[in-house]
């Protein structure tokens, strides 16, 4: 029985037969052994011995069946064990390898965590904002409708038109309307408080599928007259009433009027943002009967089986009928509808997709870098791999080992990435200036984690592929002979290609970031026509119940201006109904009596404001012609108007506008004399054309709500602290809201481009750093590999500067190739972001040149460090080393 060692050697050829063959083989072996034995011991002939051996073996078939069953079961078990054991062994091998080079493992894992974490964070935003269905039942049946006419496709719908659409159309299960959220003063038990209310029509709740959890919603009966009833939003109900279930029937004092609570909406019910309460719109009362007053936006729930096109066709028929019936108000007016979902994501889709693409590119660069690092290590491990191959490990097995290593790295990176994305998302929530809808719904949920794991595995495959291919394809004997120091060969080429790809992708990202940053800078440098820096703004909305007369309101604001102006550090105070670049606007039609009639096709659509006399002065809007409002422009004096240069040039291109009369649509035509022309301003956005603006003296149209602007000579914050006490001194029941520095309000209008520029800038910076590391790594490795060659050159008299040039040239070569490819790619890709750009073309030469110089310069620097190291090579040491 001492044949063990010999047999061991042959086990290499151990190729196990099938179960049935194995049993046969074993039996045959036994019978032959027995026969030999019989021949030797009992002198039987070969045939007789075989017969006898068979006879003694017994019931062959029965035994075989009993053996085979056992054999099969055994094999099944072993197969399972083996594959588990092998995977376990692979993982142990991978971990052992990583422990041997902890520095490399750390770099790889941190880079991976960065790439995977950024991707996870951005994907969770993409998913929450773009991919998740809206939080309404059967949200695909919901449509959004805003009125449209020849001059404006984003207008609104007048209440009478809405009623006609609601009554005459059959495409909708429900068609509701809403106005914007407004501010109200809540008084009663506590200090006066500003609350947010939203007026909605009947069917608004039903259209969105919201069912009150307490009480009722609004009916058509509620729209017949001014109904002082409210339905509470869930959050307000929780905060103010502690979620009491007996709240229905209680009363709230809003703007001094007592309102009855008739219902409470469920948690999360809202459209765009949740108000404190909802109130019905008295559609059949007063100004709501005027067809020219467009102030509703509609949300409809399509009947099952009705397509949006069918519904649109029906609305178009109704629109043209209305146009025939009411030509003076409804000419060219239609009601286009779009899926509600598109309203949520419309403005941000492109930006988000570009960010997603950018982090995807960052991940690819990460992959390239990690692949490079592993390649460098793989080359160092050639001997180990070659030995394993020589000892019988197949190529598949080696690749499997290397892949396991990559996957282990990717999964550790994945864990780090999840942690990082958690942090990134929290940071994003803070940094995000409210430009992304539904940001509160964004979360790291199961789908996001599945995505993360999927990209991690994919990442592992991508960056593991190159090292596995390059390393498993070794020439065994030469590798073993040279001890693995041989030329890098194909792996060197792969590494070069990876660096080229990195540089190319970094170039694209830097271009994208550069264009966005430039757009933002251009946007920020647009002159808004007034000077928001050093100003404080606040909103004061007088409740009509307590300030019923014009005199009361005029007097309140006059006193307020005087008291605020008396504060130390205040240079001037003014009020206006709407402030430019503060997110709101009022527009109306303007005509010229006898020449340009209201209601005609040529009428002008202009923004209008009711302002105090000091407004232009305080805002630093230059007076170009005529005069500003004065004390003489009061109630009862001749109506006057100030227009801006843009409107003046448009209406009176060849005449002096001063002294001309303007007809303004204020529900009824209102005529005023033009007394002054001021500079044009940006109304809504720095990115849009300034538009037309006109100003009316507050004292002639004293409305209840005014914005206060305070020009300060000191830090605005100190003034802000004094505003509410000053108001309270005048009227302790009067709240102040929206108190902030004007520059911050203006900043909000450029928040989205800034946010995009910031994020893409960060991604591009990460990409740049990674690409530079890539270039540096490849060249360092090259220098280490060619130390001997460099040594010989130096020994033969090459100057050190020649050596530096040699290495740097190699680095620049790779960079240039990357730049060339990146240039072509950027030309194609930046076109996609044209809609995000302002004042700069998608192929802006300056940006392209600057980025090329930046990337070329940094990679030149990255090449120079290893080149200097090469030049310092000691020729004797380098030669002795081999």
């Amino acid at each position, binding site marked *: *029985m*001492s*044949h*063990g060692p*010999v*047999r*061991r050697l*042959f*086990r290499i050829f*151990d190729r*196990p*037969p099938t179960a049935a063959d*194995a049993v046969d*083989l*074993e*039996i045959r*072996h*036994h019978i*032959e*052994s*027995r026969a*030999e*034995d019989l021949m030797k011991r009992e002198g039987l002939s070969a045939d007789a011995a075989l017969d006898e051996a068979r006879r*003694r*073996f*017994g*019931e062959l078939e*029965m*035994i075989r069946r*009993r*053996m085979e*069953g*056992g*054999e099969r*079961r*055994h094999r099944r*078990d072993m197969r399972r064990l083996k594959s588990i054991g092998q995977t376990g062994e692979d993982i142990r091998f991978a971990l052992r390898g990583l422990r041997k080079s902890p520095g490399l493992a750390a770099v790889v894992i941190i880079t991976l965590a960065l790439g995977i974490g950024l991707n996870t964070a951005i994907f969770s935003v993409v998913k929450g904002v773009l991919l998740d269905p809206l939080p309404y039942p059967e949200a695909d049946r919901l449509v959004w409708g805003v009125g449209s006419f020849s001059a404006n496709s984003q207008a609104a719908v007048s209440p009478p038109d809405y009623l006609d659409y609601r009554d005459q159309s059959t495409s909708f299960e429900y068609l509701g309307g809403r106005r914007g959220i407004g501010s109200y003063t809540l008084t009663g038990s506590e200090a006066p408080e500003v609350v947010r209310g939203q007026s909605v029509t009947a069917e608004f709740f039903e259209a969105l599928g919201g069912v009150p959890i307490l009480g009722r919603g609004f009916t058509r009966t509620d729209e017949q007259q001014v109904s002082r009833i409210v339905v509470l939003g869930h959050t307000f109900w929780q905060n103010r009433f502690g979620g009491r279930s007996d709240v229905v029937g209680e009363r709230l004092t809003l703007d001094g009027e007592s309102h009855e609570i008739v219902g409470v909406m469920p948690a999360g019910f809202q459209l765009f943002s949740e108000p404190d309460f909802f109130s019905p719109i008295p559609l059949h009362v007063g100004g709501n009967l005027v067809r020219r007053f467009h102030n509703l936006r509609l949300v409809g729930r399509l009947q099952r089986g009705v397509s949006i096109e069918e519904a649109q066709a029906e609305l178009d028929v109704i629109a043209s009928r209305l146009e025939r019936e009411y030509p003076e108000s409804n000419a060219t007016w239609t009601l286009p509808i779009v899926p509600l979902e598109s309203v949520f994501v419309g403005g941000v889709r492109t930006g988000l997709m570009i960010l997603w693409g950018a982090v995807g590119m960052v991940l690819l660069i990460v992959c390239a870098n990690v692949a490079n690092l592993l390649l460098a290590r793989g080359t160092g491990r050639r001997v180990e791999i070659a030995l394993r191959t020589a000892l019988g490990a197949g190529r598949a097995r080696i690749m499997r080992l290397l892949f396991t290593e990559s996957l282990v790295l990717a999964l550790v990176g994945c864990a780090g990435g999840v942690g990082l994305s958690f942090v990134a998302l929290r940071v994003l929530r803070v940094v995000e200036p409210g430009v992304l809808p539904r940001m509160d719904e964004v979360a790291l949920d199961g789908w996001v984690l599945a995505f993360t794991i999927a990209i991690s595995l994919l990442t592992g495959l991508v960056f593991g592929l190159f090292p596995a291919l390059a390393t498993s394809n070794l020439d065994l004997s030469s590798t073993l002979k040279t001890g693995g120091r041989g030329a890098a060969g194909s792996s060197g080429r792969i590494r070069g290609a990876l660096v080229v790809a990195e540089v190319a992708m970094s170039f694209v990202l830097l271009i994208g970031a550069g264009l966005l940053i430039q757009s933002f800078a251009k946007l920020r440098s647009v002159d808004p026509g007034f000077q928001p820096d050093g100003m404080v703004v606040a909103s004061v909305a007088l409740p009509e119940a307590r300030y019923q007369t014009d005199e009361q309101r005029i007097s309140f604001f006059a006193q307020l201006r005087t008291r605020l102006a008396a504060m130390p550090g205040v240079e001037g105070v003014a009020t206006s109904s709407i402030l430019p670049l503060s997110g709101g606007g009022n527009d109306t039609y303007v005509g010229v009596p006898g020449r340009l009639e209201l209601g005609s096709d040529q009428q002008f659509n202009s923004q209008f404001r009711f302002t105090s006399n000091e407004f232009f002065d305080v805002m630093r809007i230059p007076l170009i012609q005529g005069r500003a409002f004065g004390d003489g422009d009061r109630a009862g004096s001749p109506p006057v108007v100030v227009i801006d240069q843009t409107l003046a040039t448009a209406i009176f291109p060849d005449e002096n506008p001063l002294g001309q009369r303007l007809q303004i649509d204020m529900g009824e035509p209102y005529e005023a004399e033009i007394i002054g022309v001021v500079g044009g301003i940006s109304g809504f956005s720095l990115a849009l054309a300034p538009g037309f603006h006109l100003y009316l003296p507050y004292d002639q149209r004293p409305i209840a709500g005014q914005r206060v602007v305070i020009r300060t000579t000191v830090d605005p914050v100190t003034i802000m602290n004094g505003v509410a006490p000053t108001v309270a001194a005048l009227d302790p029941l009067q709240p102040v809201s929206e108190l902030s520095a004007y520059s911050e309000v203006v900043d909000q209008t450029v928040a989205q481009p800034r946010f995009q520029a910031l994020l893409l800038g960060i991604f591009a910076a990460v990409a740049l750093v990674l690409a530079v590391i890539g270039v540096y790594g490849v060249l360092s490795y090259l220098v280490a590999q060619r130390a001997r060659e460099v040594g010989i050159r130096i020994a033969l008299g090459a100057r050190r500067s020649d050596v530096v040039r040699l290495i740097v040239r190699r680095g620049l070569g790779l960079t240039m190739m990357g730049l060339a490819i990146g240039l072509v790619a950027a030309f194609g890709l930046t076109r996609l972001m044209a809609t995000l750009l302002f004042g700069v073309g998608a192929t802006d030469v300056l940006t392209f040149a600057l980025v090329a110089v930046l990337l070329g310069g940094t990679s030149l620097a990255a090449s120079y460090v290893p080149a200097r190291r090469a030049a310092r090579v000691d020729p004797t040491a380098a030669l002795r080393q081999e």
Partner: protein
Amino acid sequence: MPSPIEILPGTLELLVMKALVGVDSMHGFDILRWLRSATDEELVVEEGSLYPALHRMQRRGWLVPEWGISDRGRRAKYYTLTVPGHKELARQEQSWHRYVSIVGKVIAAGAAA
């Protein structure tokens, strides 16, 4: 020499494992031969029970099989006793000794009566 006796049911596994203790590994025919010589040919082990028993023990993890080349140059299946096999052998030996002593006591008591 008395005629050989049939092996007692349940003891074959014990004997096979005993055969494998201390040797590298054996194929079925070797095990059979070893049993014959170790028992001075007084115990009959049938091939029909040996091979199914080997496979049963392999399945229970007491033996591991390996394919190799026999000293006669043929492909043969070798069995090695595993660690669980060694434990099982010790257990079975112990219970065999108890069995023998109990049966012995019973027989002795019967003789005394």
